[in-house]
């Protein structure tokens, strides 16, 4: 575990030095340990990335560096030094002098990390007000400089706007501006790009790289190895409160020593061909020979029919804004999904991809164009006639929890989705439920649980089991893994892949994540602002993007730099 920590400037004092940091929560005696002895140091102009999944303790560690660990946290450390000063005995007053002045802190999701009621200029000026004696006019001048420095256009106007009036990228820039106002020696960025579209994400990473080049030390906290790869000099992989591996970026990504790091790297779907397993065997997947699922399916002759199972022709949908203007959400979108295949729809937020999913499900009716299911009319049918056909097309959502009635337990959710459930006896229904649970790799004991009491991965498995229950031909997957940790995401993607081959399922797979879409899709549709920009075989589109927008998306997608010394 104890790797040699490469020091780019041997002999110089590190900006931050942490030895054997332990954090526990709860009453002083009997607190639950959360971080068990973490060591790291960062030198001037250096970037360390702490990478881990939820619950690894990475954010708690970062917050401890600014003394904001939380109420009833018990912290012990052998060394906790900032530029040679011992932070361990700092009281609240001393901490306040450090925060913002010596250490800048950028939280994730700037929409909620900036006060929605105050102009961003005031938020940024707060750092100056607290730590300097500048006059208000001088502060304003400095804020304008900062806005300029972080690449916010038209600073004179932006300074008076509030976070709700800015786009996600600009908000994140403003947040960074506030953190660097006093040019702190150390800048901590906790998932700084998580809520952002890929292209914006790239801009923010570039901005952080600029700060690094200017000599600021950077501590980057992220769940995504690919995101940190281009920026970090060194990576520390954290799991369950411990750093399991640390080393230079190229080494950790190119020649990982620890089993967990290898698992994380394997779980990244980008550039992995269709059908490659992302999770190690036995990580909870077991699609066995469950030919009995939807017993009638095997005999269903419609299954063997050729031709696409789902066809969209020139779909169009507009929504009315609150102020009466109309917004075209989807404009002239066509595609065809073949049996046993996956069609990926990729686009950034607002591209209209979710509206397409709703129209495919018959939840939104296209104003023009048509969706056809198994060669028959679908979107043009009245809901009453659509209902009996709905067993052919089911869906999985980004937020499985919201798609379950909070009062229903797993058994009820699944038996409700069974076809002709009323004709089955209680015992028969139970057998079917347990079989479904097994199919998605869950223990039968979860059947009496409420969804709220399940983990994120388990919930998505239940959602998949529910989608399988009626024996569908098509499953619409709307961002099915975007809320999951990488390793869980890998398991779910593997599961979907196995189920597809087992049951000859067709997926319409909607995601903002190019890596995921590339991994799962046979064909791909790239959408921007309601229109199809480019469509074709996934391999071809990724190898030879024809359109400027696709190229830009591909360039912005974070990608593992696995070659030695592969930064930039």
């Amino acid at each position, binding site marked *: 575990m104890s790797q040699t920590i490469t020091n780019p400037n041997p002999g110089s004092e590190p900006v931050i030095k942490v030895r054997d940091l332990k954090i526990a929560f709860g009453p002083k005696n009997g607190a639950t340990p959360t971080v068990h002895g973490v060591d790291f140091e960062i030198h001037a102009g250096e970037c360390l990335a702490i990478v881990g999944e939820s619950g690894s303790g990475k954010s708690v560690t970062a917050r401890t560096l*600014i003394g*904001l660990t939380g109420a009833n946290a018990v912290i012990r450390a052998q060394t906790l030094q900032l530029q040679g000063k011992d932070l361990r005995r700092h009281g609240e007053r001393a901490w*306040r*002098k*450090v*925060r*913002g*002045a010596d250490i*800048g*802190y950028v*939280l994730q*999701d700037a929409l*909620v*990390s*900036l*006060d*929605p*009621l*105050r102009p961003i200029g005031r*938020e940024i000026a*707060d*750092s100056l007000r*607290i*730590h300097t004696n500048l006059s208000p006019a001088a502060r304003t001048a400095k804020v304008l400089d900062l806005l300029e420095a972080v*690449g916010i*256009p*038209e600073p004179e*106007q*932006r300074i*008076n*706007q*509030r976070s*709700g*009036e*800015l*786009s*996600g*990228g*600009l908000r994140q820039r403003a*947040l960074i501006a*506030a*953190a660097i106002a006093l040019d702190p020696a150390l800048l901590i960025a906790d998932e700084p790009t998580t809520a952002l*579209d890929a*292209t*914006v994400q*790239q*801009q923010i990473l*570039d*901005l952080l790289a600029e700060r690094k080049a200017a000599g600021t030390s950077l501590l980057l906290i992220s769940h995504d190895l690919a995101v940190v790869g281009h920026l970090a000099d060194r990576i520390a992989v954290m799991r369950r409160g411990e750093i399991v591996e640390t080393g230079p970026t190229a080494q950790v990504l190119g020649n990982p020593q620890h089993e967990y790091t290898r698992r994380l790297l394997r779980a990244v779907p980008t550039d992995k061909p269709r059908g490659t397993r992302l999770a190690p065997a036995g990580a909870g997947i077991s699609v066995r020979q469950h030919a009995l699922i939807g017993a009638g399916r095997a005999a269903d002759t419609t299954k063997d029919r050729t031709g696409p199972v789902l066809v969209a022709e020139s779909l169009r949908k507009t929504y009315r804004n*609150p*102020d009466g203007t109309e917004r075209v959400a989807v404009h002239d979108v066509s595609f065809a999904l073949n049996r046993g295949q996956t069609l990926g729809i990729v686009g*950034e*937020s*607002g591209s209209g991809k979710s509206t397409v999913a709703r129209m495919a499900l018959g939840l939104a009716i296209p104003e023009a164009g048509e969706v056809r299911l198994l060669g028959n009319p679908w979107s043009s049918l009245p809901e009453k006639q659509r209902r009996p056909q709905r067993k052919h097309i089911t869906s999985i959502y980004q937020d499985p929890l919201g798609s379950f009635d909070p009062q229903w337990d797993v058994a009820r959710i699944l038996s409700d989705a069974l076809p002709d459930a009323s004709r089955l006896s209680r015992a028969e229904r139970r057998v079917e439920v347990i079989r479904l649970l097994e199919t998605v790799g869950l223990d039968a004991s979860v059947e009496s649980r409420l969804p709220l009491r399940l983990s994120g991965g388990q919930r998505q498995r239940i959602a998949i089991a529910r989608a399988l229950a009626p024996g569908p031909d098509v499953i619409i997957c709307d961002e099915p893994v975007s809320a999951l940790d990488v390793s869980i995401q890998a398991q779910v993607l593997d599961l979907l892949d196995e189920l597809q081959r087992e049951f000859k399922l067709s997926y319409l797979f909607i995601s903002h994540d190019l890596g995921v879409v590339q991994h799962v899709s046979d064909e791909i549709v790239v959408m*921007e*602002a309601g229109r199809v920009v480019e469509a074709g075989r996934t391999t071809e589109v990724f190898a030879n993007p024809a359109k400027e*927008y696709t190229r*830009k998306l591909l360039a912005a997608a974070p990608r593992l730099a696995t070659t030695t010394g592969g930064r930039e």
Partner: protein
Amino acid sequence: MSLETLNHTPSTSAAISATTDSTAGSSRLRSVLRLSGLRILGAAGVLWAVATLAFFAMRLVPGDPVDALLGGPGNNATEEVRELTRELNGLNEPILIQYGAYLGKLVTGDLGNSYQLREPVVQVLGDQLGNTLVLAVLALASAWVLALGLALWSARGGRGATFVGNLLEVVSAAVPHFWLGSLLILVFSVSLQWLPATSGAPGIEGLILPVLTLAIPLAGFLGQVMRESMLTAMNSPFAISARARGESEVSLSLRHALRHAALPGIGLSGWAMGSLISGAVVVETVFARPGIGRTLLQSVLVRDVPVVLGVVVLVAAIYILVTLLSDLAERLADPRLRAA
């Protein structure tokens, strides 16, 4: 790629909003103005509906209005006198004509004549309205001060704050005005003899107890709402951001949380004004203070329909006006509401 070129690539969301946001300052005002236009129209509609509903509801009052006009059911008026009275008051007309006449007069500010007092309702209410408004506005202001103070004090968390939170819940929901008023009289007038028990006479002393009686339960309610949104603010990511800049807890609550606490208070002002005027019915009775509340009560007891109708329409108008203003104020203060 430099930041500048990226920023001005039209397809990035940052750049899209860059073009639409450039006129944000004036568009904010414009959107609020357009909305206020719609709101004012809507408010006028509600007022018309209130007047209509109240008018037809009053037709359900049993008994011949002529009896009321002639001094109660026991009057000995001859049939000719009754007929003449009907004629004079337009009571023989079809109901829709009467309704039209009522609306027409309403627009010109004529609310008819009181059966009991034999004077125009407008005059009756005009004499009383000021008293009640002074009471209600003072109570609203005191409730605001009390509630904000409590919220600020209790938002620091801890056991004491939890206790205060529970206390506010109980006080706001459970303490009736008439009992609170009586207790205040018992303590400050009867025992301590500091303040008068009645507030008929002009002067500030007479106002203190009635204002407190109205303000305390309202402060409990407002304080609860403000405290909650203050706690939410203090625990939200932007508060962590502020702390990470070195902001102290006191400064955090004053500079950030206070605005968040005030917002729902502003939004509830219309409701609060309505409940204060309704509370004035009780409080004016307890403290024997003249006002439209007490006038309303006396008119309800003798079924003086024009006065009841007048008070109802007047109070509804005040309520609608204050709601309208507080709504607009809230929107002006909170950009998130305008987006919705």
